[in-house]
């Protein structure tokens, strides 16, 4: 244990060096503290998370709820749709073409259109955020179903699994490793979309907090928001991996079989 740590010392060099340099340069007025306040001050200022008056706690919750709602619908609709279209090659290939076109369009571009339709509502925000994660979930689910060993599908047929049993017993668990990867990718896109939409069109949320504090040049608060967004990003990637590995007890075997 100690030796492992001893070998891993370079892990701390980068962050410590950057933060220390930043702190010193800022304190020495080499970089302007108005724009680059020392990290320690940002950390102290992070106390506003728990301060009812600043409203930041509410912004964090608003962003979290939007992210969770979006990913929930993306997974639910994306998996169902993804599995359904694998039933027909025409559906699958056709959908693929459509999604290949839509995928590289940033979801936030649909915000004006959806606000025409729905006004500046939560509904418009979540539907906009949903665009890219939904595409991702469909693509990964289709890939997951395609990756199921053909023989396992023959077992399902030969042993009489049809309808719901085939769907929930074979297709969903068979595609699950790919679906889980899809959820990880979708979480990243959801966070991007929600923050971007909040920056331009919401009355609360971390993105709105970030953007409005920057506009009135309350820079320290902007950094606090950035810090929290970074933490959310870490949770959505590294944190998600830790949870996902526990969720699939057979995953090792599946991955082993694929490599």
């Amino acid at each position, binding site marked *: 244990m100690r030796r492992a740590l001893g070998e891993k010392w370079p892990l701390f060099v980068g962050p410590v060096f950057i933060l220390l340099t930043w702190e010193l340069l800022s304190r020495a007025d080499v970089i302007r503290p108005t724009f680059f306040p020392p990290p320690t001050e940002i950390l102290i200022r992070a106390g506003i998370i728990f301060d009812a008056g600043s409203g930041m706690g509410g912004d964090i919750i608003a962003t979290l709820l939007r992210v969770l709602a979006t990913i929930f619908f993306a997974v639910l609709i994306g998996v169902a749709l993804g599995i359904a279209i694998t039933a027909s090659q025409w559906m699958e290939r056709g959908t693929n073409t459509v999604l290949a076109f839509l995928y590289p369009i940033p979801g936030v571009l649909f915000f004006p259109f959806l606000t025409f339709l729905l006004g500046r509502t939560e509904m418009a925000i979540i539907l906009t955020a949903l665009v890219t994660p939904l595409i991702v979930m469909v693509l990964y689910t289709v890939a997951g179903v395609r990756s199921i060993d053909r023989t396992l599908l023959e077992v399902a047929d030969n042993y009489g699994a049809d309808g719901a049993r085939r769907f929930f017993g074979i297709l969903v668990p068979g595609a699950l490793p790919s679906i889980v990867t899809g959820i990880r990718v979708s979480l990243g896109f959801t966070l991007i979309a929600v923050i971007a939409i909040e920056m331009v069109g919401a009355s609360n949320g971390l993105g709105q907090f970030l953007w409005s504090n920057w506009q009135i040049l309350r820079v320290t608060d902007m950094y606090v928001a950035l810090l929290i967004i970074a933490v959310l990003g870490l949770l959505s990637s590294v944190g998600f991996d830790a949870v996902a590995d526990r969720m*699939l007890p057979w995953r090792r075997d599946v991955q082993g079989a694929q490599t």
Partner: protein
Amino acid sequence: MSVQAKAKVRLNDVAKKFPGQENVTALEGVSLEVAESEFVSIVGPSGCGKSTLLRLVAGLYEPSSGTVEIESSKPDRPKTAMVFQEHALFPWLSVRENVMFGPRNRNMPKKEAAEIADEQLARLGLARFGDFFPHQLSGGMKQRVGIARALAQDAEVLLMDEPLGALDAQTRTLLQEQILELRQQTKPTVLYITHAIDEAVFLSDRIVLMSARPGRIRDIVQLDFGPDRSPELRGTSEFAALSQDIWNHLRDEVQLAMAVDDR
């Protein structure tokens, strides 16, 4: 062709073509009857359509022409249960759940299905492993779970597609003996594919020799050892002579198949 008992499986002039760029004709003019409780092995060069034949019997493929019939003894009894070459266990189900898979699909209550599963697992010496996941088992154990899964189906016909193909020689010898025991205990009707001629001779009542693609039946060898043979059969000179004889029959076809592949 001898017909001792009622025919359980009847293939009538079956052909199977796979349309596509190459238009493969996998099987042509195959007619075969398998009697109740008979153990029939199919040997033939790689790619001659053995697996295709089994999948036709399982109803996984439709024949391009001809008919496949399976005699039902009870209306609800599954017609076929297949054992696959690469075990084909569901990695996300425990060993017991894998064996319960067929009965559960027929809406058998969980408890009853679990009892059947445990019984079959015990029969194959896997009683302790019901709660394991497949990735925690060795290759031979996985293959036995695959066999237990098929037995739990209690189907009219047991279909085995090179069930021991992926195993090492010792495990394979051991499992051959377990399959022989199974034959003696439950008297199933079996269609068995193998590449190993000695395995076919050791286990079967009849051996079907197939020709290179398009697969046709070239010859059928009747064996008279009866179901109550013992493992010592392998050591007899009769056994060796028969195996050699069958190989002599097959050699040309295997060479032909390789020549086709080389083109």
